[in-house]
């Protein structure tokens, strides 16, 4: 094991402006995210449930520039990375402006160490993390550059 590991980024939310979108796409491309075919296509209004995979991520850290671009667009994300030789697998969840950060076991689950078994605060932190993670995963990732197109997307979603 070394200092570098693999990571996955899930994006969720609604893009309501083209400002900053090109920058985000360019950042993803420059980091060699693996979903390159998807990124080559210009985003169109509509759902864009997207997941990107990264290799050789130093200590599993989310690239600062990329994170800033995601936050500037008002998106939620889940960033998960594998373990390295001296750090565990982790998941970072940003949902509606709240950052949750958890270490993961081999089964990609947060865990409670034996010495923490009676620690109510730690149990509550795990519960909050799971709720935030599930909320982000349940959220679609939409491109709706105007209020009108957002309405159209919702109207489509409601159709049988």
């Amino acid at each position, binding site marked *: 094991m070394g200092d570098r590991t693999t990571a996955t980024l899930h994006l969720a939310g609604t893009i309501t402006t083209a400002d900053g979108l090109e920058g985000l796409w360019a950042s993803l491309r420059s980091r060699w995210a693996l979903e390159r075919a998807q990124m080559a296509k210009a985003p169109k209004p509509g759902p864009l449930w997207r997941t990107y995979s990264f290799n050789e991520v130093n200590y599993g850290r989310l690239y600062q520039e990329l994170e800033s671009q995601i936050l500037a667009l008002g998106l939620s994300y889940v960033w998960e990375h594998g373990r390295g030789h001296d750090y565990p697998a982790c998941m970072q969840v940003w949902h509606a402006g709240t950052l949750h950060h958890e270490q993961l*076991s*081999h089964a990609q689950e*947060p865990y409670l*160490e034996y010495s923490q*078994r009676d620690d109510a605060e730690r149990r509550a932190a795990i519960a909050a993390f799971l709720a935030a993670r599930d909320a982000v995963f349940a959220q679609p990732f939409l491109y709706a550059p105007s209020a009108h197109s957002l309405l159209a997307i919702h109207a489509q979603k409601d159709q049988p």
Partner: protein
Amino acid sequence: MSHHTDATLMVAGTITSPADRDRLGAALRTEDDIDVDVEMPEEAGPIGKTYIYEGTYKGYMDSVLEQTLADLGLSYTWTHGATDDIERKTIVVHEGKRHAHALSIFGEPYLCASELDCPRARAALHAFLAARAAVEALPFVYAPSAHARLHLHTQKGRP
């Protein structure tokens, strides 16, 4: 990432014959490429109980060593680090029963979020901890005769 990791074996119990002592000594040194320092005593007495194995393949214990420990009725703990696809783990064999538990990066056993309220998972964790503590507290001695065993017990009782 690597397929190899270090492991620590802690043995407990009593070896009751010179033949068993020699068999165990050979089993502890089973693999040529494993670096382990083994000293078997000539006379009755306590044996150093911890052995460190460097570079085991995915943390697996050699099957000959595992079988020898079982045949001799010894208890032990086997703890190995993580590899690219195997988590760090401790295996405890105490009184013939095997317990295994994953360890966090800090070396502590843990419950996953989905197991927090699972009675079976909690019971397994408690059984694991009890067995591990029992093996750690038990001495590892060489006593090839009833007389030697008695002698060791008498010594143990002294201040």
